[in-house]
């Protein structure tokens, strides 16, 4: 195992009597090229796990290791780890600097990581990356405010890819998009995953999306991991009562149309 290893993770916010433990002893692994979905409702701790993995939050206990290297906060990480783990956020627009042009946003990280900066003309490299995520190279000269939500999410993905990551942490990366655009971004993530051998930690509350994209699925509730396993196994033979409750409550279009009855009733 040489991907991401999270062991006995605990995350606390606040101090003393007001402290809240958001993650209470979570262990999980994401193998090279593998996609693990982390599902759960609000307050389940799934986003806190993602933030620790991305180096944006500090664990109270437990360890996170990536390709054998133990990980601390993002600034303390060795350069190859910093660039190796990239995050895709839920709100594509607010995760991009509105004052910068798209080309500069994508190329920015190369100054911090000259090791992966492309030889030759950076503008050409930016154009190639924009092409990889399905954007017209002309977008490079525009600012995020002039783009649609789906285009902004593509820019966020291009920015991540610029650093040639091995692991993408996707935090509700398609949740805020219109349904017709969501399908585009899911397709793009799946294609890029195959082309670059990317591993993904895919945080989502949308079980339908998870079933389409994840190899394995872990279910969180109240800071604990209640069940994990192969995605099809979790969806067809859930063992934990909470997983069953979650799956039972999820609306399904096919079921609603075929049965006439609702799927929760």
């Amino acid at each position, binding site marked *: 195992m040489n991907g991401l290893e999270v062991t006995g993770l605990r995350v606390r916010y606040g101090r003393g009597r007001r402290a809240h433990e958001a993650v209470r002893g979570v262990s999980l692994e994401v193998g090279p090229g593998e996609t693990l979905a982390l599902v759960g409702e609000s307050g389940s701790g799934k986003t806190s796990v993602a933030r620790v993995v991305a180096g944006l939050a500090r664990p109270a206990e437990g360890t996170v290791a990536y390709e054998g290297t133990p990980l601390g906060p993002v600034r303390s990480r060795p350069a190859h780890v910093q660039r190796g783990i990239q995050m895709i956020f839920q709100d594509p627009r607010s995760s991009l600097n509105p004052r910068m042009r798209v080309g500069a946003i994508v190329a920015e990280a190369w100054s911090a990581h000259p090791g992966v900066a492309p030889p030759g003309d950076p503008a050409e490299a930016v154009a190639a990356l924009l092409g990889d995520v399905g954007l017209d190279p002309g977008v490079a000269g525009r600012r995020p405010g002039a783009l*649609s939500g789906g285009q902004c999410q593509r820019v966020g993905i291009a920015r991540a890819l610029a650093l040639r990551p091995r692991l993408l942490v996707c935090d509700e990366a398609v949740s805020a998009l219109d349904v017709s655009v969501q399908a585009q971004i899911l397709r793009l993530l*799946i294609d890029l995953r195959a082309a670059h051998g990317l591993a993904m930690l895919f945080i989502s509350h949308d079980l339908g999306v998870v079933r389409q994209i994840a190899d394995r699925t872990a279910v969180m509730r109240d800071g604990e991991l209640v069940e994990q396993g192969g995605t099809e196994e979790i969806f067809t033979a859930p063992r934990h009562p909470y997983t069953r409750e979650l799956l039972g409550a999820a609306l399904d279009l096919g079921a609603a149309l075929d049965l006439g009855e609702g799927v929760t009733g």
Partner: protein
Amino acid sequence: MTLLDVRGLSVLLPSASGAAVPVVDEVSFAVHSGSVTGLIGESGSGKTMTAMAVIGLLPEGASCSGELWWAGEDLLAADPARRRRARGREIAMIFQDPLAALNPSQTIGRQVGEILRRDGLPRARVRERVLAALERVGVPDPARRIGQYPHQFSGGLRQRAMIALALAGEPRLLLADEPTTALDVTVQARVLDLLRRLRAETGQAMLFVSHDLRVIAHVADEVVVMYAGRVAERGPVRQVFRAPHHPYTRALVESVPAVRAKSVPAEPLPGAPASPLARPAGCAFHPRCPLARDRCRRERPEVRALAPGRHTACHFAEELAAGARP
């Protein structure tokens, strides 16, 4: 029986450039008593503005034309007193964010009972009715909850309280704008079940706005699919979603990931939903449509009946109905 008949409704909003933008453009549909009509669409579709025009909560500077037939009168032409009575009392609304819609400084009981007090009901009677209303929407321990404030309620309970508030005046039509979108999956399921039960028990008519086809398939009888401020298609929800008569509806249905079965992400539509600010000529959907041809670029399709109860705004709906694929 037709309860609300929306005919040729248009809403213009002022834009930064000064020109008025038609965000709702000649929209027609009906809501029948005892029945739920779903209004579905993506960003810029005009679904929320349509609901806001019905309840009379359009933003400042908006102008509205067309007809809103309600109980034998056109609300857009009626005198203001009649309009207020219809919209305060006969038509009630629940919103996506109950925290923004509820008054944070008043107890839940006071807010739910407001309309009853206005009717001059004695205090003891108001309390009784409020307790019954909270109980009916599944707020546990209503006798204790009645004295609490919105911040002491969880998201799901707040939404229930708002439903109780909306129903307190016994409206004939309930407008719901994405009422479960902000809720967790398990809470959403319970609130949707509550709305379905209310409808089954009391025949409460609803106009239900959502971007989520699963929610609409779950609660609605009829659906109106909107795109770029116009009706793309409308009809009985199961017929429309099972056998769409508009390529946009078909693409929407195909892009909903299944939970109960393994599916692969659908072949996505290109581009993004059209904005009313830059509505393409002809059929607004043509730049994204796999079936588009010359006529679609030139000529705006009118909404027409293709089968009893089924209306579509696609020039080539017959081909789609016959199973054509690009």
